[in-house]
């Protein structure tokens, strides 16, 4: 008897005991040497579940900072002539108060806020906070592994992210301000301290921070890939993996292939900044001086940046898609429609994401002939994306939908993904992009499709797997209020921006009344700002709910509260390091047997009955 201390009580435990794989996990060691004290349990933990929580909470803190920044610049855009003197205690010298007492936001800091908002949300929140959290939490649990392939690298992954966070946070307090040249950091603006205050020390810290971040992503990614490929439990064939795992797996591959290119782009930028090379610089006269750099091209940087930058948007959205597929299926009590088509779509999107990058550069001066190919590939992406949307909608069809905060956000995700995805068809077509490029149409497009949608995926994941993380539930009513305000509010913020963009209003403008063409929209800008304030306030519902529920939420009594068939719900309520007390569960079927044979759900660990079809899985 391998595990004398395990006494199967529930049906699940019996199934694991009967069919599971015995890796003698608890046989040989005496106490967990990796989790022996507070420090190793909660701080320098190597348990993927703790690391997931660390990513999530760090991500939440960054989301609040990034969100607050957007409120400040929205105030500037919505109410350009109102006094911001009341922000002086927080922003200090970045607010200039005139003798009449009117406080004005400095232009330099406005651009710093815009830049930091983008950097923080894209990298720290929607990459680390989303993929970092759920890949860590779910990959070992859903493939039936004790932990990541390398728990130590996994721990390092978080701490490199933490280091990146510290450096970026420090840059906010520089006297010359943080970097202010846009989250894409195009040189020469980002390369020359003469060009912008933020391009001095602010930019140096920005690059250092993001290089640490790249290290974090690579350490995490290599772990996710290895774990998915090598540590799947008995019976867990690739075609039996939940869509979450497929999404995290492809995301990790994308990250592994694209982030090093970003890093090399950054290194060349560092060389140009510090060593006098001319990779990106040529024929520049600035600050009354002709620089020595000749022969470089700023467009090279754009290629390197977007070679990451475009896969990056899929690195953000694929995990959200995976989460939504899972959550929709569980709460609709119905199998995900077209599982294989969903997997092929993820693979197709992942592949195509590498050959569309220059659609960010139609107007950058690249040869217009080259753009033809990027238009074709870009619009092809619409096909697998459309397939996913149709499949999600069909998943709801004839389902038995249980509305929870998680399923609401999953449905909201689909709505957002449709709205934002369709506007991508305009932008991907280079002819239309001539007018739309760098206008508010783009802002509306990417905020809806990869900002709001990715957040919705993340929220769905948080509400759904909170019980797994903390053994308690988040409050459902607050979650639903949070959803409805955010759903309505997010559209209220970003929908009107399409009209701004059609009128040609450029993004990244400090104010619009310098141009006759752009000054028609003062009322709309006020409306957007008010909506943004309300939506931000609604997010505090989540924050309060989250932290309150960690300690005071309703306790979990049933280890599988949602009636889900995936493996993570076969673990005990208070999951220890190693995930399963006894054997590792063996997988007998695909993860979406909902409503089959008149049963609400059939866990993956339940063997096929005689004559039962496995549906080709």
């Amino acid at each position, binding site marked *: 008897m391998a595990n004398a201390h395990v006494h199967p009580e529930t049906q699940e435990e019996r199934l694991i005991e009967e069919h599971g794989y015995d890796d003698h996990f608890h046989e040989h060691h005496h106490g967990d040497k990796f989790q022996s004290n507070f420090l190793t349990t909660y701080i320098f933990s190597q348990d993927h579940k703790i690391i997931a929580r660390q990513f999530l909470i760090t991500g939440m803190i960054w989301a609040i900072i990034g969100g607050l920044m957007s409120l400040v610049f929205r105030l500037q855009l919505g109410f350009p002539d109102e006094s911001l003197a009341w922000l002086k205690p927080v922003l200090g010298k970045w607010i200039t108060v005139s003798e009449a007492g009117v406080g004005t936001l400095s232009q330099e800091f406005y651009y710093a806020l815009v830049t930091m908002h983008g950097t923080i949300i894209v990298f720290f929140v929607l990459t680390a906070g989303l993929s970092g959290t759920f890949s860590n939490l779910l990959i070992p649990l859903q493939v039936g592994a004790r932990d990541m392939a390398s728990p130590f690298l996994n721990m390092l992954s978080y701490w490199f992210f933490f280091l990146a966070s510290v450096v970026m946070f420090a840059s906010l307090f520089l006297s010359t301000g943080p970097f202010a040249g846009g989250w894409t950091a195009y040189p020469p603006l980002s390369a020359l301290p003469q060009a912008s205050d933020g391009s001095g020390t602010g930019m140096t810290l920005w690059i250092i921070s993001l290089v640490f971040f790249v290290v974090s992503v690579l350490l995490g990614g290599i772990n996710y890939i290895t774990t998915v490929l090598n540590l799947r439990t008995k019976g867990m064939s690739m075609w039996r993996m939940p869509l979450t795992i497929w999404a995290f797996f492809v995301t990790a591959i994308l990250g592994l292939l694209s982030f090093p290119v970003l890093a090399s782009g950054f290194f060349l930028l560092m060389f140009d900044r510090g060593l006098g090379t001319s990779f990106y610089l040529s024929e*520049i*006269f600035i600050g009354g001086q002709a620089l020595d750099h000749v022969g470089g091209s700023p467009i090279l940087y754009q290629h390197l940046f977007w070679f990451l930058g475009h896969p990056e948007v899929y690195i953000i959205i694929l995990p959200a898609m995976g989460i939504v597929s899972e959550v929709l299926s569980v709460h609709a009590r119905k199998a995900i429609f077209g599982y294989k*088509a969903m997997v092929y779509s993820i693979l197709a999107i992942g592949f195509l994401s590498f050959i569309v990058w220059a659609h960010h550069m139609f107007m950058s*001066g690249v040869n217009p002939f080259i753009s033809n190919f990027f238009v074709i590939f870009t619009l092809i992406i619409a096909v697998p994306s459309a397939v996913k949307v149709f499949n999600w909608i069909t998943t709801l069809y004839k389902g038995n939908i249980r509305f929870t905060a998680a399923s609401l956000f999953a449905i909201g995700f689909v709505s957002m993904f449709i709205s934002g995805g369709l506007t991508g068809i305009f932008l991907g077509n280079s*002819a239309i992009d001539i007018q739309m490029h760098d206008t508010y149409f783009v802002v509306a497009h990417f905020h809806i499709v990869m900002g709001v949608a990715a957040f919705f995926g993340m929220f769905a994941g948080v509400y759904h797997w909170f019980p797994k993380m903390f053994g308690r539930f988040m409050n459902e009513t607050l979650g639903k209020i949070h959803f409805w305000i955010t759903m309505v509010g997010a559209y209220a913020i970003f929908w009107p921006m399409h009209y701004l963009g059609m009128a040609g209003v450029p993004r990244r403008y400090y*104010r619009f009344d310098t141009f006759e063409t752009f000054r028609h929209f003062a009322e709309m800008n006020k409306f957007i700002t008010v909506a943004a304030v309300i939506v931000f306030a609604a997010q505090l519902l989540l924050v*309060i709910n989250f932290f309150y529920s960690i300690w005071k939420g309703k306790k979990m009594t049933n280890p599988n509260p949602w009636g889900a068939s995936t493996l993570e719900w076969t673990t005990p309520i208070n999951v220890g390091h190693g995930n399963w007390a006894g054997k590792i569960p063996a997988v007998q079927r695909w993860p979406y047997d909902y409503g089959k044979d008149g049963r609400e759900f059939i866990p993956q660990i339940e063997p096929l009955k005689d004559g039962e079809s496995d549906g080709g899985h």
Partner: protein
Amino acid sequence: MTAFLAILCVFLIGIVVVQIGRVTELASKIRGEEEMQDRTNKSNASLMLAFMVVFLVASVYSAYHYKNYMLGYGPHESASAHGSTLDSMFKITLFFTGIVFVLTQIALFYFAWKYKADKNRTADFISHDNKLEMIWTLIPAVVMTYLVVGGLDAWNQVMADIPEGAVSTLVPQNDKEFLEIEATGWQFGWTIRYPGEDGKIGKKNFKLISNNNPLGQDWADEKNLDDMHVGEIVLPKGALVRVRVTSKDVLHNFNLPHFRNKIDAVPGMPTYIVFRPTKTTEEYRQMLKDYKEYQRPDPNDDTKMLWETFNYELTCAELCGKGHYSMRMLVKIVEEPEYRAWLEKQNSYYLSTIRFKDGDPYKDKLFDFEVKARKAEFDETLDKALAAQEAAAKTIRLTYVNFETGGADLTSLSHYELDDLADAMKRYPNLRIEVAGHTDNTGSPDANQTLSEQRAQVVYDYLSKAGVSADRMTAKGYGQTVPVDTNDTEAGRAKNRRTEFVILNQ
């Protein structure tokens, strides 16, 4: 105090939120979880349906409300020849995406409402349907193909360079001619260069940029000499225009929203756009007149309506630093006569700012048109003197004849006027003159006397070498004895240092 109140507020809101949460938890304890889930399913399903209606109505209504800002609709018409192809691509895309948007959103929210949980029902087990999936893979694929083909066709037309064999000229007259101008972005503004009479923009080099050469034009390239820097972009309606876009420092973007043009300004690499403006500013204003958005008083000038003050604008559409939002320049499209009248008022940057200054490589020579102008000026002065009666009018100053300081060597540009004089001597065979040298009172009178004699003699020798016979002229030095102005100021002394000739006989 405010900070304290703010913190208190946040704290109280937090408590309220937590209490809301607890109330519902209590309710679920009393009513039972299943009952509560049942209620919440119903209410949220209804909200889904309500949201669908409100969302679709709001999106369609807002699109209707803002229709006049949509590309190619109402007053938001493009003002360039290629603009409409792009606008029609927008409309076609809007049509297809609009249908998909409405149908999918309806399906999503309707199914969410329709299939809300019901205790008495289980979900159907439908794992896939290959036929259905094939259909909805193919339909988007076909639509995308259609959009790609249309889009690429438009794109390649719009981005095409000027037709082969076309010639650049300042005022294009036909399809074989185009106007090429140059826009250079810098932090934070634009410098616009027009080609001048030769129709060609001269070379530039960033190393040559200085205070009085803001673009770094290379004056050794003669194409530069007539290039003009202008304060606004004025273009003739109907002409083919190519804009060469460059940058001095960081990336900028040359964006003409009304003309559907946008291209990055890249340091070290010129980029190009080609377009043909089709509506004059005035015509565009007349078109706007009919729309109520433009029938409001201009906030900056309430004596005029918005349509009356409308102008095309050049903007920057690539983040370039803190002044990015302010890189405005006025763009005017006018009929050709008005364009010509405007060109008349523009000056060559070289001639107005660089000519005869230190950086001028041609300061030792005159261009043909300058030689002609000088000759005309000289002949006019001479003819006036010949026609005059009084003796004082018979003395003519050789304005452009100068000597190196303190010596009797002619400066490099002096010979042009002497040539003009020699020509006049040939034209008027009876003309006899005295060449007279004068100095100011700097230095000793004796030395000045000698110097003036030497200088008169140099002129005499030059004329004689040019074929004027000795009996028709004399040379005389007057030293400082005949000032025409005060010697107390530099300006006066400059007038006193002079070479003249006196008509003795005509």
